[in-house]
C-alpha cells in the first residue's frame, strides 16, 4: 500500500493527488461503471428474490399440506374418541336393557307387594251388627221405677259393656295388624327406591356420554369445516402432546440407560471383555445396547398387537396372526427379562470378585464381608428385580412414542414452515439491502467525480441559456445530466 503513495511521509496528500489524477479517468468511465454497478446489483438481487419467493411458496404449500395432515389426524383421533364413547354407550345400553326386564319385573313385584299391603292395611273392622239399633231403641225406654225393666236394662248394659270390651280389643288387634303390615312396607319401599336410583344413575351416565359425544361431534364438524379455531386447537393440543410424550420418553430413556448399565458389564463375559468395536466402544456395550433395543422392539410389537398403539400397518393381518404376534413378542420379552436377571446376578459376582482381588493386590488379606444375613442379598435381589421389570416397563414406551411421532409431525411441520418463512424474509431483506447498497455505490462514484460533473452541469446550463445554440449538443449534455440525476 505504501508503495502506491507518492510521498510516503504524507499519506493524505498523496491520496489526494492520486485522486486528482484518477478523477478524469473515473469521469470518462462513469457510464460503463454505473452500468456495471447496476447490473452487478441486479445479478445479486434477482437470485435472492427468486429464492425468497421460492421459500415463501414452499412455506405456503407446506402449510397447506400440514393443515391437511392436521385436520386428517385430528379428525381421525376424534372419530376414534367418538367410536370409543359410542361403544361405551352401546355396552351401557346393552347391559342396562339386558337387565331391564328383570329390573322391571322386580319393580312391578315390589309395587304389587306394596299395593296389596296397602289394601290390607286399609281394611277396617266390620261395622257393629244390626242389633245395636235395637239396643239403642231399648236404651230410650225410661226405667220409671219398674224393677223388671231396670234389671233388663242392667243386663243389657252389662252385655253391652262386654261387647264393647270385645269390640275395642278387636279394633286394637286390627290396628296392630295394620301397623305390622305397614312395617313390612319399608323394605319394599327401600328396594323400589334403590332400583329407581340405579335407573337414574344409568340414565345420568348415558346423558353424560351423550353430552361428550355431542361435544366431540361439534368438534368433528369444525374440523370437517376446516375452521381456524379448530386448527388452532389442534396445533395447541399437538404441542402439548409432544411435550408430555417427550417428557415421558425422557424418563423412559433414563430407565433404558439404567438397564444398559446393568447388563453392559456382565455382557463382557459373553462377548469378550477386551473387544472393542470402535476406539471407545466396547463390544459388550454394543451387545447390551442391542439387547435393550430388542426389548424395546418387542415392547413395540406387544403394544401394537394389543391395539394400544397403531404404529405399524397391521390392519391387513388376521386376528389369529395378531394373537400369535402378541404371544411371540411376549415370549421373547420374557426370555430377555430372564436373561437380564441372570446377567444381574453375574454382574454382582464380577464386582464382588474384582473388589476381593483389589483388596488382595492392595497388600492386605481379603476381607470377608460382615455376615449380616439377608441384608447383603438386597442389592443382588434389587438388581434382579430391576433386570426383570425394566424390559416390561420399556415396552410401554411405545405409547408415548406414538404420540410423539404423531404430534411431532405436526409440530415439526409448523416449525419448518416458520423456518422457511424466516429464510424467505431474510433473503428478501438481503436483496433489498443489496439493491440499496448498489444505488449508494453509484452515488458515491458520482461524489468522487463531483468536480467534472459540476463543470458538465455548468456548461449545460450555459448552453441552455444561449438560445438558438446547436440543439444536438444540448440534447447530448441534457442526456448526461439526466443519467446523473437518475444515478443520484
Amino acid at each position, binding site marked *: 500500500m505504501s508503495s502506491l503513495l507518492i510521498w510516503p511521509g504524507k499519506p493524505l496528500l498523496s491520496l489526494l493527488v492520486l485522486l486528482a489524477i484518477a478523477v478524469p479517468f473515473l469521469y470518462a468511465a462513469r457510464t460503463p461503471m454505473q452500468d456495471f454497478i447496476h447490473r452487478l446489483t441486479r445479478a445479486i438481487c434477482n437470485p435472492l428474490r427468486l429464492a425468497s419467493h421460492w421459500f415463501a411458496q414452499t412455506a405456503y404449500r407446506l402449510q397447506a399440506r400440514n393443515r391437511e395432515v392436521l385436520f386428517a389426524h385430528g379428525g381421525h383421533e376424534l372419530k376414534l374418541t367418538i367410536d370409543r364413547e359410542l361403544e361405551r354407550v352401546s355396552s351401557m345400553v346393552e347391559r342396562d336393557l339386558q337387565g331391564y326386564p328383570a329390573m322391571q319385573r322386580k319393580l312391578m313385584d315390589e309395587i304389587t307387594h306394596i299395593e296389596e299391603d296397602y289394601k290390607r292395611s286399609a281394611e277396617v273392622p266390620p261395622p257393629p251388627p244390626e242389633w245395636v239399633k235395637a239396643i239403642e231403641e231399648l236404651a230410650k225406654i225410661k226405667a220409671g221405677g219398674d224393677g223388671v225393666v231396670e234389671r233388663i236394662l242392667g243386663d243389657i248394659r252389662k252385655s253391652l259393656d262386654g261387647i264393647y270390651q270385645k269390640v275395642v280389643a278387636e279394633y286394637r288387634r286390627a290396628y296392630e295388624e295394620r301397623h305390622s303390615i305397614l312395617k313390612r312396607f319399608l323394605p319394599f319401599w327401600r328396594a323400589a327406591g334403590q332400583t329407581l336410583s340405579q335407573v337414574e344413575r344409568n340414565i345420568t351416565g348415558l346423558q353424560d356420554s351423550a353430552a361428550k359425544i355431542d361435544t366431540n361431534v361439534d368438534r368433528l364438524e369444525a374440523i370437517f369445516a376446516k375452521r381456524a379455531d379448530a386448527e388452532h386447537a389442534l396445533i395447541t393440543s399437538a404441542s402439548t402432546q409432544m411435550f408430555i410424550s417427550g417428557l415421558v420418553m425422557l424418563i423412559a430413556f433414563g430407565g433404558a440407560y439404567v438397564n444398559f448399565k446393568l447388563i453392559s*458389564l456382565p455382557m*463382557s*463375559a459373553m*462377548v*469378550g*471383555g*477386551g*473387544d*472393542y*468395536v*470402535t*476406539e471407545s*466402544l466396547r*463390544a459388550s456395550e*454394543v*451387545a447390551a*445396547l*442391542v439387547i435393550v*433395543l*430388542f426389548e424395546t*422392539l418387542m415392547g*413395540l410389537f406387544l403394544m401394537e398387537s394389543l391395539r394400544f398403539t397403531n*404404529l*405399524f400397518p397391521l390392519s391387513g393381518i388376521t386376528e389369529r396372526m395378531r394373537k400369535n404376534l402378541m404371544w411371540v413378542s411376549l415370549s421373547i420379552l420374557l426370555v430377555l427379562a430372564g436373561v437380564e436377571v441372570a446377567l444381574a446376578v*453375574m454382574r454382582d*459376582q*464380577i464386582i464382588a*470378585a*474384582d473388589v476381593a*482381588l*483389589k483388596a*488382595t*493386590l*492392595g*497388600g492386605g488379606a481379603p476381607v470377608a464381608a460382615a455376615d449380616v444375613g439377608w441384608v447383603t442379598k438386597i442389592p443382588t435381589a434389587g438388581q434382579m428385580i430391576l433386570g426383570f421389570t425394566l424390559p416390561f416397563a420399556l415396552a410401554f414406551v411405545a405409547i408415548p*412414542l406414538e404420540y410423539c*411421532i404423531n404430534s411431532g409431525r405436526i409440530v415439526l411441520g409448523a416449525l419448518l414452515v416458520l423456518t422457511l418463512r424466516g429464510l424467505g424474509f431474510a433473503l428478501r431483506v438481503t436483496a433489498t439491502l443489496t439493491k440499496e447498497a448498489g444505488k449508494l455505490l453509484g452515488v458515491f462514484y458520482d461524489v468522487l467525480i463531483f468536480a467534472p460533473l459540476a463543470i458538465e452541469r455548468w456548461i449545460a446550463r450555459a448552453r441552455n441559456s444561449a438560445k438558438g445554440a446547436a440543439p444536438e449538443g444540448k440534447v447530448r449534455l441534457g442526456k448526461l445530466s439526466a443519467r446523473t440525476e437518475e444515478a443520484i
Partner: protein
Amino acid sequence: MKPWIVLAGLSAALLAGCGANVNRTQAVYILVDTSGTYAKEIGKAQNVVNYVLGTLQPGDSLAVGRVKSRSFTEKDIVAKVTLNRDPIQANGQKRIFGGQIATFAKSSQAGGGSRYTDITGGMMQGAEFLHETGARTKTLIIFSDMQEELDYKTKRDFPIKLEGIRIIALNVTKLDTDNVDPRRYTGRLEWWEQRAREAGASDWRVVNDLEHLERVFSNRG
C-alpha cells in the same frame, strides 16, 4: 415409526457388534532389577506390579522379568499371563499372577542381588515378549537405577530394536556417586533415552513418584 427404521437401526447395531474388532489390547513387561543394592527395592516393585495388574483389562498381557548378570533369556521371565476374555476367569488369572509375584518378591529379598546388571539384555527379552503378544500398546517398565554393569564376556554394545514400545523408567534411584556428581545421574538417563529413541521406542519417560502411577497408566494407547 416405520418398521424399516427400527430394523435398520438394529441391523446397524448388530453389524457394528459383529464387525471387525479394533485391537485395543495392551501388553506390559515389567523389568525388575534384582542386582546389588537395588534388590531391596523389590517391595516397591511388587506394588507396581499389583497396580498394573489391577488396571489390566481382559485380553491384555503382562510379564515380569528380572535383571540379573545376563538377562536375555526366557528363564528370567518370572511370570507372564494373557488375560482371558471372560472377566471372571481373568480375575482368577490376576489372583494367581499376584501370588507368583509375591513369592518372587520374598525369594528375591531372601536370596540377595546378582553381581552384575544386564539391563539391555532384559530390555531385549521384554521387547521380544511384547512383540509376540501382538498388542496394540506395548509398554516396557524398567524398575531399576539404570546403572548397567556387565561382565567382560557379555556383549551389549550394539543397536537394539524397540520399535513401537513405550519405555517407562520407574524409581530410578540415585547412587552414591550421583550424589557426588549429579551430572552422572542426568547423563545416565540421557544416554538411556538416546539409546531407547535410536532403537525406535515410541516414548521415553522417567517416573520417580510412585504415589501417582495413575497418571502414567491412565490412558490406554
